[in-house]
């Protein structure tokens, strides 16, 4: 393939990956915005989404249900975690990081015990190829990119236009004040955390046909989320989304010329450089 086509392919792949990880990253930033916590377990919800998809596929040969079941399951799990562990430690920053690190290991190793260390694959539901003059591109990947945008847009509308979304935004702005206005902050915390997990799981469901499900895949998603929020601004949905797409694009282009590993390293270094100059994120907004 000539370099120009390879470049375009890299751009498309990068965009797709960036959009998909943007879902995970928005979930991460949502739990930071509402609960003010750094949730290291976040990547594991993504992994759960992927693994459940494979399990359901093996069981029922129809992975489409997993788009509903996996996020619900993850949300449920997240709410349990939030009620039993996070609220006990009162969402204090450092204990939460340690606790979520612990949960990361528990979930990861439990998955290992159940499905073993192998990668598990699922065939894509759409196997047509869209031809362009330069190359053929998987229609499933395009569908995934569109699905990510749709899910993100739905979330945006939910937060901006619905009553529940309004209450979430209030808690994000000022939890104390929200309490005085009669908002059940505890419930919003649980819902917010559940929603963030559901987003990550949805991304995991979508990605399995492209990459495989593996018990360690959560790390990558966590890294992508961290990179995105560091540049995009913690708690800023717009910034995180944009940053994730940018990082994905950057990584995709770099990977064409080098390798996935190199692109990871360069993405990290890019973020570190940005942090040096703009410690509060590119959009300079901490509130959404």
């Amino acid at each position, binding site marked *: 393939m000539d370099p120009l086509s390879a470049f375009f392919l890299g751009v498309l792949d990068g965009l797709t990956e960036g959009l998909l990880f943007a879902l995970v990253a928005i979930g991460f930033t949502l739990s930071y915005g509402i609960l003010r916590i750094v949730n290291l377990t976040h990547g594991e919800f993504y992994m759960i989404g992927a693994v459940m998809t494979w399990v359901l596929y093996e069981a029922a040969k129809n992975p489409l249900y997993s788009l509903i079941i996996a996020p619900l399951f993850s949300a449920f799990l997240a709410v349990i975690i939030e009620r039993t562990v996070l609220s006990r430690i009162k969402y204090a920053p450092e204990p939460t990081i340690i606790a979520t690190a612990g949960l*990361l290991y528990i979930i*990861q190793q439990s998955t290992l015990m159940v499905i073993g260390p192998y990668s598990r694959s699922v065939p894509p539901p759409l196997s047509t190829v869209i031809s362009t003059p330069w190359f053929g591109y998987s229609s499933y990947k395009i569908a995934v990119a569109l699905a990510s945008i749709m899910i993100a847009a739905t979330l945006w509308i939910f937060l901006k236009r619905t009553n529940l979304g309004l209450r979430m935004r209030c808690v994000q702005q000022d939890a104390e004040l929200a309490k005085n206005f009669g908002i059940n902050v505890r419930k919003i915390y649980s819902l917010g955390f559940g929603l963030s997990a559901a987003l990550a799981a949805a991304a995991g469901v979508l990605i399995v046909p492209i990459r495989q499900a593996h018990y360690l895949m959560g790390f990558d998603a966590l890294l992508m989320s961290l990179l995105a929020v560091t540049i995009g601004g913690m708690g800023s949905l717009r910034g995180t989304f944009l940053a994730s797409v940018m990082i994905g694009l950057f990584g995709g282009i770099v990977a064409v010329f080098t*390798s996935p590993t190199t692109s990871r390293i360069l993405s990290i270094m890019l973020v570190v450089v940005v942090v*040096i100059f703009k410690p509060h994120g590119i959009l300079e907004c901490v509130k959404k």
Partner: protein
Amino acid sequence: MNARRTIVSYLIILLILYLLQFVLPPYPHSLMTRIMVFAIYASAYNLLLGFLGMISLGHSMYFGAGLYVTGLLIINKLVDPFSAIIIGVFSATLLGVATAPILLRTRGPMFIILTLMTSLAFYYAVILFNNVTGGEQGLVLPLERLTLPAGKFLIDLTSPVARYNAALLGLVIAMSTSLTIYLKKYSTLLLAIKENEDRTELLGYDVYRHKLTVFLLSSTLSGLSGSLYSITARYIGASLVSVNYSIMPLLWALLGGQGTVLGPLVGTAFLTVIIDIASSYTSSYLIIVGISLIALVLTAPEGLLGRIKTRWLRV
């Protein structure tokens, strides 16, 4: 604070460790060596955690610098083992110097995230250059490079005796560092910084310089641990610089309780033994790490934050 009592108890512990090697059967003997090497790492980590209250999730980078530089120098027959250790440790210091300006400008969650990211970059770099480093599979240090003549004698660094005492020596260096900081009352200033950086600065102290000092001590000693690990285990591999090895020292330090000098050793010994036992039953033994972290967080009396933020005791 009774300085004499502290020093005496410290010396007694060292004596016990020294004498242990003569009574332990072979497997516990080499396990003890491993524990001591890791305890160096835990001590190093504790300098930042216990004295300054900083949680780093990126220390595997400095451990890895010592590990890989020393290991690769020996494997590639470039220098003798002793020089390899010194160069390895020094490279960990250099890495600390290089990363400090970026990392020390941040606090709290951002510091944790940045340390995690930079150590992940190190891990990926090791994977990337796997034709040199051996990647995930790793490389074994050849036996013949680890024996050296010294005058009339032959020092065999692969013998259990040499390995045990090398680890013990490293541990003495690490624990002495913590002890000196405590005895010289430098710990008072560090605890003040831990509690309230602004207020300490207003008293006239250059807080950044002191954080840098402790940070460099911490990275250097982590490198020492890595160097000694490569020699005592005769193995270097990417798994040793993964995120797990950034989280382990945190767990070792926390499990060991609030003791300044002994804490890391106790925590390391405890967890290493448990993991050793567990790994013979299941390959998912890391789940113990997870459970321990959760248990710590939920059961600490003043809450885990209280445990980190309050006073660390002398022994």
